[in-house]
């Protein structure tokens, strides 16, 4: 069962129980919806961007623990970053989730997000973890929706 415990680490379960930056904010400058048509996951990302800096990052949606925790950790990591820095971390995150990547791949700058590294061993769940990131990228680019299909 160790694989299962690695997937549902304490950090992930804790973020699922107490998601950070959860809910629809009163004001935002950018928004996009992420949809996973196959499993029905949905996440909405709301951003306040000023002078190319991510001032506030919020999200809402109803989805599994992996998806909720991933979004929660993403919002914490993203706030205060420049857009260029955020996209750099997005690229790292994509590699972290890549099936071909090393099992123990770790990026210092991704902080707690590294806890998701085990997800890639559960192929059907990778999209749960990546949906919020693609939704956020879409929001920054001014696109209304993102899918992970």
């Amino acid at each position, binding site marked *: 069962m160790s694989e299962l415990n690695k997937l549902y680490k304490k950090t992930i*379960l804790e973020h699922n129980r107490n998601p950070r930056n959860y809910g629809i904010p009163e004001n935002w400058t950018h928004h996009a919806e992420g949809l996973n048509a196959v499993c029905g996951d949905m996440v909405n990302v709301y951003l306040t961007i000023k002078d190319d800096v991510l001032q506030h990052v919020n999200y809402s949606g109803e989805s599994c*623990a992996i998806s909720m925790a991933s979004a929660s950790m993403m919002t914490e990591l993203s706030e205060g970053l420049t857009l260029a820095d955020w996209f750099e971390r997005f690229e790292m995150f994509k590699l972290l989730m890549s099936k071909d990547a090393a099992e123990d791949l770790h990026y210092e700058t991704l902080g707690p997000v590294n806890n998701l590294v085990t997800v890639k061993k559960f192929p059907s769940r990778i999209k749960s973890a990546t949906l919020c990131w693609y939704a956020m990228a879409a929001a920054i680019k001014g696109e209304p929706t993102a899918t992970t299909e």
Partner: protein
Amino acid sequence: MLRDQFPGLNIQVHGKPLVYLDNAATAQRPQAVIDAVNDYYLNHNANIHRGVHSLSESATELYEQARVSLAKLINAPSHKDLIFVRGCTEGVNLVAQTFVRNRVKAGDEILISHLEHHSNIVPWQLVCEQTGAKLKVIPMNEQGELVLDDLDQLLNEKTRFMAVGHVSNALGTINPVKKLIQAAHDKGVPVLIDGAQAMPHLKVDVQDLDCDFYTVSGHKMYGPTGSGVLYGKAEHLNAMPPYHGGGEMISKVTFDSTVYNAVPAKFEAGTPNIAGGIGLGAAAEFMMKAGLDNITQRDHELRIYAEQKLNEVSGLRVFGTAKEKAPVFSFVIDGIHAHDIGTIIDHYGVAIRTGHHCTMPIFQFFGVAGSCRASFAFYNTEQEVDVLVESLHKAKAMFT
């Protein structure tokens, strides 16, 4: 034991014996079906309805014999009333495009139910887009049963067709299709019954039902994937134009015109899924030998036991509590998303489906995004119900 004839059940998942409870997605196949498919490829591999050589003749005979077996299984008046298709999706689309599309115009209505699988919704929406017809829906109640109070208004002078599932794939509800067909026929409305989820559980008699069309999905009734049949009343099939053009569906082709072949060949353009059709025939024979009454009885026992055990799990809510239902359980557990439950119990060998089960309107009704679905077949056991329940407790423990 019938169960012993299903080799696909004897495997281990994450070091645990497989508990296969995703039968509504696709069933396991008995050795007889696997053997029939192998036998075709090993001993009769040739195209059908074409060659004069012996191999082609024996392949044709096996394929046509399968059609006869299926006709017997659903008590069709003739095996010629059965068209081989890829599954129910193709069967519904065939009827939508070749029977219904030409009969409806703007303002006409097509009636379906709230319990339909997307495959019995979207083909009708396509016809509505093509013709300007309107889609009407028979409502459902909290128990997941169809509400027939307003059926008389729903079936009105504008109604041109009705398409209803026999058994709900998401909730297991067995719909009163005979009553619905009678009501529709009283208004002169032809009816298609989607039998995808009924075939593995119930004795189906298309003559007794008096349906105009009935769709059968092979892989849900222990046959090969990509196999299925559409039953249609001969008078309809003879009058309908072809669905696909190609080889086999013609009698004569010139560049000026084409004379179509007789039913069922008219609807079977191109080389079909020969092995799949033969395998499906073997599945029909297997079910008749096992006895549909025995299968229904075993389903009932499993349903009662699973219902009781699942209701004992605190925080678990079952959607769909119809009086008449197949052993299909859609449920959620407080505080744990369905996908997480699916992933966790998979590690105990338990295979279930999670999500919306291609029935998003049903879950919109219940106000949730989706559910876990444990769907049983006659070969499942009470002990497997216990393993399911135990694994659900493990999932709950992990999240508290």
